[in-house]
């Protein structure tokens, strides 16, 4: 028997993914919907001996055809692949959430409603008559608090029951007389025409003018009466606005249900969120507070990740290195293997692994910020300033996501409705310094600016934002002229982030970092090591090795930026597949060159750089060509070759130019 499938549907911020996590636990994986870049989360659970598959559909407000998210969700629901749909509703926002429910009921779907976050609604003194709601909607309603795993069991039970029961189709909506009249005729036209959708629903979508459904109907039939009927209808009624009439009847339905089953206090309760917002999004304080929060994030990242824990990680890597070396010598391994393992793997990959505590703390803090509800406020306070640079507040969220990793930041631009805004945002997100660059700064900061670690880091990130905004302005004035799109954004209530969800998000990022160290970084370092010890005739790690020759070729490019040795140039080159490899390659080359025990990367860096060239190098790393994963993400999102190539080149040019500027101006003022 085919495994039964359950699909989760709900508005953004309804706690849908939290419920998905609560239901499936660790049994889940993330992929992509075919043909689009919308994330697809799937998982499974076992209940009374039977296994059920669960799909987490994208968060949507409505089943329309405007964004990729909506199309993915609608197509999935329409194909009837799911045996039951769990519709997750934010209880404190019930009317708007019921709007989507109404559409699902219109489609005649087998539904179970999870009335989620009832705790927050209760804080606002809202009371729910769950039984009455269930009766009025004709489907089971289960109150839940997914973040605390309350009601999960009950939802599962109801979903399983619903699969066995199957819902009888019955459209609970009454449309306006006008719409009903046309609906009857349209149903007659579509009935028995073997369409992929139920005729009653298809007829409403045709009247509503849903271009996506109409084109699907037209593609599925060549019945001339149907095709002509639809075209005629829209030609004849081009001036009518049935769409808004239908939307209004849906809202009227949702409103009636809420009226009958939800009791609200006579006066809205002033919540803690309201009080906090008075300060955090204040006209004058908003941006300074944002800057303070980010500064605190970087200070803490350094204080905990580096000063407190960094030593342990370094000692661990060093200890492991000694162990491996002893083992290899004890086993009489050939010299090349010892060299590869120690110079290549331990000093290369190890140099990256040492930064696990640092990036762990950073990701932990970023996910705390995200889960607390502050990100939406950051977008709000930045909207005005962003507009001055031709962008909108939402782009700022993508930029902050870029502090973690540029790839999801590029993907997050999908929520922007306007193509121009989206392109500009994608082109500037690489300037938002990502987690993989952190190890590089960290080495240089430890070597030259150890007293002001957090501040230097903060300045680098801030500088990245400034360069990004200036480039955005430039793009808006040149290749992407046009209106900046409007800004609509929900400001969800502040929440105390749940430990589980923060840990999960942190672990996803950290495990990815470790995985990358073991795969792509290992590969890059291996290739670099091979190039550094070959040909056999050359002195290993010297300028006469292949790597040395390549580096020498690159040196003239970077001389004006102050870093004129081949090692430094070739490390930047190694950073194009993955940024961490810059540190990995430097670690390997310096260790190989000095051929002595205990030469720590930081000391080697102190010998090869000055504080000025270190600064120029960090600026170069901050701005130059993003990693291969980012470039390919841009290729996927823009479905082009031109944009990713253009991005790779222009960022390199900017990085180089600014690094040269830093070095030349610094030299002029007598810094060394």
């Amino acid at each position: 028997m085919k495994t039964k499938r359950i699909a989760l549907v709900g508005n953004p911020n309804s706690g849908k993914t939290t419920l998905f996590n609560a239901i499936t636990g660790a049994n889940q994986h993330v992929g992509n919907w075919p043909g689009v870049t919308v994330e697809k989360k799937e998982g499974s659970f076992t209940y009374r001996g039977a296994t059920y598959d669960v799909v987490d559909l994208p968060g949507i407000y409505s089943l329309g055809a405007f964004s990729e998210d909506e199309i993915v969700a609608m197509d999935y629901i329409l194909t009837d692949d799911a045996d039951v749909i769990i519709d997750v509703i934010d209880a404190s926002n019930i009317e708007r959430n019921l709007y989507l429910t109404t559409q699902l009921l219109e489609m005649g779907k087998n539904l179970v409603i999870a009335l989620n976050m009832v705790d927050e609604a209760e804080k606002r003194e809202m009371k729910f008559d769950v039984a009455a709601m269930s009766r009025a909607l004709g489907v089971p309603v289960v109150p839940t608090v997914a973040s605390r795993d309350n009601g999960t069991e009950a939802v599962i039970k109801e979903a399983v029951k619903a699969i066995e029961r199957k819902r009888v189709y019955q459209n609970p909506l009454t449309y306006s007389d006008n719409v009903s009249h046309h609906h009857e005729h349209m149903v007659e036209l579509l009935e028995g025409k073997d369409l992929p959708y139920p005729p009653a629903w298809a007829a409403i979508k045709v009247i509503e003018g849903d271009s996506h459904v109409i084109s699907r109907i037209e593609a599925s039939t060549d019945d001339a009466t149907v095709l002509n009927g639809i075209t005629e209808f829209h030609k004849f009624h081009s001036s009518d606005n049935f769409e808004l009439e239908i939307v209004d009847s849906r809202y009227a339905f949702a409103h009636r249900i809420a009226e009958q089953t939800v009791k609200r206090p006579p006066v809205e309760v002033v919540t803690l969120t309201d009080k906090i917002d008075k300060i955090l999004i204040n006209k004058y304080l908003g941006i300074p507070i944002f800057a303070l929060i980010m500064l605190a994030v970087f200070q803490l990242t350094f204080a905990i990740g580096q000063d407190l824990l960094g030593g342990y990680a370094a000692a661990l890597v060093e200890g492991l290195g000694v162990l491996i070396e002893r083992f290899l010598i004890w086993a009489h391994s050939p010299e090349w293997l010892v060299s590869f393992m120690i110079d290549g793997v331990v000093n290369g990959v190890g140099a990256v692994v040492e930064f696990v505590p640092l990036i762990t703390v950073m990701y932990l803090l970023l996910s705390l910020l995200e889960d607390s509800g502050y990100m939406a406020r950051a977008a709000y306070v930045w909207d005005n300033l962003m507009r001055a640079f031709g962008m909108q507040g939402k782009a700022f969220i993508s930029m902050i996501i870029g502090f973690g990793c540029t790839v999801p930041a590029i993907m997050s631009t999908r929520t922007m409705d306007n193509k121009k805004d989206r392109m500009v945002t994608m082109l500037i997100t690489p300037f938002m310094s990502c987690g993989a660059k952190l190890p590089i700064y960290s080495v240089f900061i430890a070597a030259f600016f150890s007293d002001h670690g957090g501040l230097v880091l903060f300045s680098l990130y801030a500088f990245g934002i400034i360069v990004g905004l200036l480039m955005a302005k430039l793009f808006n004035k040149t290749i992407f002229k046009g209106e900046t799109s409007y800004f609509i954004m929900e400001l969800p209530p502040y929440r105390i982030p749940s430990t589980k969800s923060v840990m999960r998000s942190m672990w996803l990022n950290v495990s990815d970092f470790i995985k990358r160290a073991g795969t792509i970084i290992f590969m890059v370092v291996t290739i670099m090591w091979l190039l550094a010890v070959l040909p056999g005739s050359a002195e290993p790690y010297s300028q006469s090795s292949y790597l040395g020759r390549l580096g020498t070729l690159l040196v003239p490019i970077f001389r004006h930026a102050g870093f004129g040795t081949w090692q430094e140039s070739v490390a930047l080159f190694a950073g194009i597949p993955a940024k961490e490899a810059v540190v990995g390659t430097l670690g390997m080359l310096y260790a190989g060159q000095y051929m002595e025990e205990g030469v720590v990367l930081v000391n080697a860096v102190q010998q090869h750089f000055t504080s000025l060239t270190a600064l120029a190098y960090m600026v170069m790393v901050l701005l130059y060509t993003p990693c291969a994963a980012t470039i390919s993400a841009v290729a996927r999102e823009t479905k082009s070759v031109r944009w990713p190539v253009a991005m790779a080149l222009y960022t390199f040019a900017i990085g180089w130019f600014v690094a040269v500027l830093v070095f030349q101006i610094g030299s002029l003022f007598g810094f060394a």
Partner: protein
Amino acid sequence: MSVSLTNLRAGEKGKVHAIAAGKYATKRLYEIGFNTSAHVTVIKNDAGPVIVSINGNKVALGRGLAHKVMLAKDQ
């Protein structure tokens, strides 16, 4: 008499009367709760986007868009 959302001060209330934006933006506004006759309370209207509350849920609207939302102001 209907006024634009941007004309309301913090604390003032109104009922959505009409939306004079493009088709796409209008639909988005509808979906997020600005349907005809929805009650809104202005929370913040100084610099930057206007924040309103619909049934206690806060939504920020860019000024350009807020300007196109017409309300019947509560007296």
